């Protein structure tokens, strides 16, 4: 009704009628807004309010004043953050582990997808898919239970080594084995799931391409490299962008559950550091908020940068 009144004068002022038609549109879709309302309330309370709470990074937290009432201190917290050697250590460690992961781990799901795609035994293919994706759906707590059991000094693997008279290896409790162990167990857990995403992309490839290639006498290997791989390249790019966007985080669940006292010098990545300074040592909420704001910003910047680079190289980006 309000909109009808606004519409009344009709064509008097362009701005007003535009505003009027906007109100009409909003009123017309009022039901749609009620659909969105519950989700929006959740977003405001549990996503955007905490995001606003990041302002704590520029404040000195006083428990009695809360996030919003605490006094501003500018960049004071960041000064301390960048002077904390433990922070810098954890920062480099995070980047180191994630970059090594990115280089070593990234091709595995693609390889697996190509192999599963080439496998002609359909029954076996389904079985392999089921078995290989299963660990993805387990928490890192369960998986670390399994991993500890297999890799412990008296575990499955070392017992096997002993049986063959080989020297045992301290997989879980040595600093030099920590990063390889983390990478290997992550490959073990997540390769199958990663392959599913590439398999979905492969299933969308135009079959005519294979048929004409076959007529031209292309071998299966040639088809794989000349047709399958180029066709899933957009998906590969997207997965790569997403991995780059996670360079500063990821892996908390895994590292937190697989680290122990013997590896504590090599296992404190950024997220573990944030957890430790927030909930285990003397609590300074402003300080840890500053660290986590820094982490989130760098992650977002890396994601957008990787996206931009992918587009510049002529590939598809994440955002259209």
């Amino acid at each position, binding site marked *: 009704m309000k909109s009808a009144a606004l519409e009344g004068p009709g064509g008097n002022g362009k701005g007003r009628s535009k505003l009027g038609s906007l109100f009409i549109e*909003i009123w017309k879709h009022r039901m749609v807004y*009620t*659909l969105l309302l*519950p*989700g*929006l309330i*959740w*977003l405001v*309370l*549990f996503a955007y309010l*905490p995001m606003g*709470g*990041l302002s*704590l990074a520029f404040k000195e937290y006083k428990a009695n004043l809360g*996030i919003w009432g605490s006094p501003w201190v500018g960049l004071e917290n960041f000064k301390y953050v960048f002077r904390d050697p433990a922070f810098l250590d954890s920062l480099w460690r995070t980047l180191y582990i994630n970059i090594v992961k990115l280089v070593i781990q990234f091709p595995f799901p693609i390889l697996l997808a190509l*192999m*599963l795609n*080439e496998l*002609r035994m359909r029954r*076996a293919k389904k079985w*392999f*898919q*089921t*078995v290989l994706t*299963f660990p993805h*759906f387990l*928490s890192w*707590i369960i998986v*670390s*239970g*399994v991993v*500890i*059991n297999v890799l412990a000094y008296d*575990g*499955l693997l070392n*017992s096997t080594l002993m049986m063959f008279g080989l020297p045992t290896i301290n997989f879980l409790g040595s600093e030099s084995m920590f990063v390889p162990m983390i990478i290997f167990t992550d490959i073990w857990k997540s390769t*199958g799931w990663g392959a599913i995403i590439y398999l*979905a992309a492969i*299933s*969308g490839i135009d079959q*005519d391409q*294979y048929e004409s290639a076959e007529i031209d006498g292309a071998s299966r290997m040639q088809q794989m490299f000349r047709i399958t791989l180029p066709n899933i390249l957009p*998906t590969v790019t997207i997965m790569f962008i997403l991995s780059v966007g996670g360079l500063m985080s990821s892996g908390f*669940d895994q590292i937190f559950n697989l*680290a*122990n006292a*013997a590896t*504590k010098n090599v296992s404190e990545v950024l997220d573990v550091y*944030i957890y430790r300074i*927030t*909930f*285990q040592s003397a609590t300074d909420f402003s300080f*840890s*908020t500053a660290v*986590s*704001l820094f982490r*989130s910003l760098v992650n*977002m910047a890396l*994601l957008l940068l990787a996206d931009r680079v992918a587009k510049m190289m002529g590939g598809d980006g*994440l955002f259209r």
Partner: protein
Amino acid sequence: MSKKGKRSGFRKGKMTALDYFIFAVLLVVGFMILIPFWNVIMISFSTQKEYAENPLMLFPRNPTLASYKALFADGSILVGYWNTFKLLIVGLPLSLFLTSSMAYGLSRAKFPGKKIIFFLVLFTMIFNGGIVPLYLVMKSMHLTGTLWSVIFAGSFSAFNMILMMNYFQSLPESLMESARLDGAGEWRIMLTVVLPLAAPIMATITLFYGVAYWNSWYDAMIFLRKADQLPLQNVLRAIIVESSTNASNAASVDSVGKQGFSTGMKMAAVFVTMVPIMCFFPMLQKHFAKGVLTGAIKT
């Protein structure tokens, strides 16, 4: 993409060396996944003595339920089961309500503010406030120390919402239009027209949220204080990670009084935590095959 489906002429022809090679590689990889689980399960069914003599346990000679009896007698795993059950019973309907109403709303034709609202959802996927502000917000709403904090923290996922929205957009608009002409409101249309048509995506998203709640532990570790409130995963963590001699982080909340678990009991705990996922997993698997996820990769 005109024609999809199995490669024609692909299954024709003899098995070549390549086929056998791929099969062999996959077989080895498959066993690398299966044997650790098999080992865990067999240890849980063997006696402490037999395991001590032979850690390479693949077939126990005298299978026993002793570890399970001891585990359930301890009782903490049952408390964990109960708390996770509460989480699912309250959290799943809430998640589905929030996700499907928003997904249906955003799948409607253009309306003012649609782009902004979609961006607000998308933005939560690339940027978030992190745990500290979330903890303080939860605390200011007096939710910490109750299961509600864990429920609310996990009750909406932008990824799941976008998946569902894509599915809704693919449904024929004419069906909703005719319901609209009959005078049905958008909520009625969603409940009576759209959701019955969307069974595959609803099943998928239910399983996704279900698995997420089942596996969640970080929020509970941060937000909850009393041991008898902790969900299953945290109880399992207390049993396997924190009671092992070289565990770190032993100072966290859920470490109290979790000593003296035998390896058999630990493995039994791993198994009972894993079983529901093993049961629901084939259902999950079916939906991937349908390529429900294809649309989600690119948003």
